[in-house]
């Protein structure tokens, strides 16, 4: 479904991402892990088109996305969350989703008026449902900037979903969350997968990755060093070395 072909991104002499090939299947929860600075976020930015790759291609369902600007990729069905939360703080919670929904409405070929003015009743009901799913319905009219941290994380997730993506890129969604919140996150990720969304999960929180993903790829210094089911990857000596250093692996 989402495919990266020999993708590379060099910043000057630094090979942030080096010749990475990945293939993520439809309806899969795919984990991408690796130590700090291993190139995980760069891969997300390449998939979203925030900067062009040095080499390689990104394609979705066989359509080459490499030359498309970020907003066009969203309308192709790729949405993301940010590791450091980036909400529209002066807009209400509801408006945050409303703005993102525009791209989904464009795909549905809604009329000019329903896209830019009110939004159809169906579109409004959809936002209410998404807010309810993330337990934010009671906060709908609050300014996003006034929410508590955990709520902001959920809103970030909800806003990405409002664009009706086929593939959802979650960039460290569990950062700063407590155990209970992570459990809810785990549950939501599974339920979204069951509703047909493909998920690429970038995460430091190993328990979550191991519990929820179908397959995992491990990055180190921009290169893919392992790929497989969570248990295969956990047993891989190269992975243990990347995380714990050579002595521990021996």
């Amino acid at each position, binding site marked *: 479904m989402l495919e990266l072909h020999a993708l590379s991104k060099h910043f000057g002499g630094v090979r942030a991402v080096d010749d990475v090939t990945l293939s993520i299947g439809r309806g899969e929860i795919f984990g991408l892990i690796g130590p700090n600075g291993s190139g995980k976020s760069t891969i997300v930015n390449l998939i979203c088109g925030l900067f062009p790759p040095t080499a390689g291609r990104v394609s979705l369902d066989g359509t080459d996305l490499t030359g498309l600007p970020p907003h066009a990729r969203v309308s192709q069905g790729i949405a993301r969350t940010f590791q450091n939360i980036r909400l529209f703080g002066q807009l209400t919670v509801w*408006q945050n989703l409303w703005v993102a929904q525009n791209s989904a409405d464009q795909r549905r070929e809604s009329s000019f008026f329903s896209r830019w*003015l009110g939004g159809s009743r169906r579109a409004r009901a959809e936002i209410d449902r998404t807010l309810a799913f993330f337990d934010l319905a009671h906060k709908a009219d609050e300014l996003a900037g006034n929410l508590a941290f955990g709520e902001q994380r959920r809103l970030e997730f909800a806003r990405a979903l409002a664009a009706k993506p086929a593939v959802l890129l979650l960039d460290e969604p569990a950062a700063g969350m407590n155990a209970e919140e992570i459990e809810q996150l785990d549950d939501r990720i599974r339920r979204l997968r069951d509703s047909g969304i493909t998920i690429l999960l970038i995460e430091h929180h190993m328990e979550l990755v191991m519990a929820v993903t179908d397959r995992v790829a491990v990055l180190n210094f921009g290169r893919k060093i392992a790929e497989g089911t969570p248990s295969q990857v956990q047993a891989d000596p190269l992975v243990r070395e990347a995380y714990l250093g050579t002595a521990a692996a021996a």
Partner: protein
Amino acid sequence: MDFYLGLAQIIGVHTLLGLSAYCVLLTGQVSLAQAGFFAIGAYVAGMLTVLAQWPLIPALLVAAIVAGAIACAVGFPALRVKGLMLVVATTAFGEAVRLFFFNFNYQLERGELRIGPHGGEGFRQIRYFPENGWSTFDVVVFIWIVVALTMAALWWMDRSRAGAVLRAVGEDELAAQSSGLNLTAVKVSAMTVGGVIAGIGGGIFAHYTTHIEHVQFGVVLATFAIAYPILGGLSNVFGTLIAVVFIQGLLIEGLRFMGDWRNLLFGGLILLAMNLRPRGLLDAPALAELKRRLVRRKDRARA
């Protein structure tokens, strides 16, 4: 009385100018080009009523379209730059427009008179209002109908998804494009709408002053245009109106008795206002408070 009518005209037209900057400012862009669009509207509308002898309303519509089209064309290259660079680029555009009209000579013989824009001497005798028997009061009413319609349209836009989209782009461009918004399209649209509003304002300005010249459309006017929405706050369109009344009514006219001290105090009061209300005169907490009081009064009336 004439003094107050004159003031009402100035406030009305400057509100239009301020609202044109408001649209652009919502997307986070500080544009000093609004005085340029205002000048284009003024000359186009003036030439249509004087030289082509059109009625006022179609002349204003064409002025709005021309100013909007130029704003759209300027928007594409100008909005590729950000922050201070955009200020520089739009200032350059405004000055280019001013210098164009400084050199613009297009006069026709009409009987013994030569009419039309005459370079540095300006464009005199835009006499549509007196020739058609409009009193100053009629003009004031006309201006405020246009202002009210513009404010209503922008108020409505603010509450639609388009308004939320403009504000989203103004807040965080990276998040906005990652949410599927086409930044260029959004910014250029805002610039175009701003150009249309400035064009209408300029067209009206040309007709009530009856004499326009290039110096009126310089950097000072451009600075005023952007100062109104910044001082008034971006919560809604009334902030801009309040700022225009505050600056034009209170500071410029109200302090006349101070003589030369006025300019000093003028700057001081703006500094004070920005320090006391950094998010604008009419910011979100002020609005919330206002709403609370209105609701309470309504409750009391019901009880």
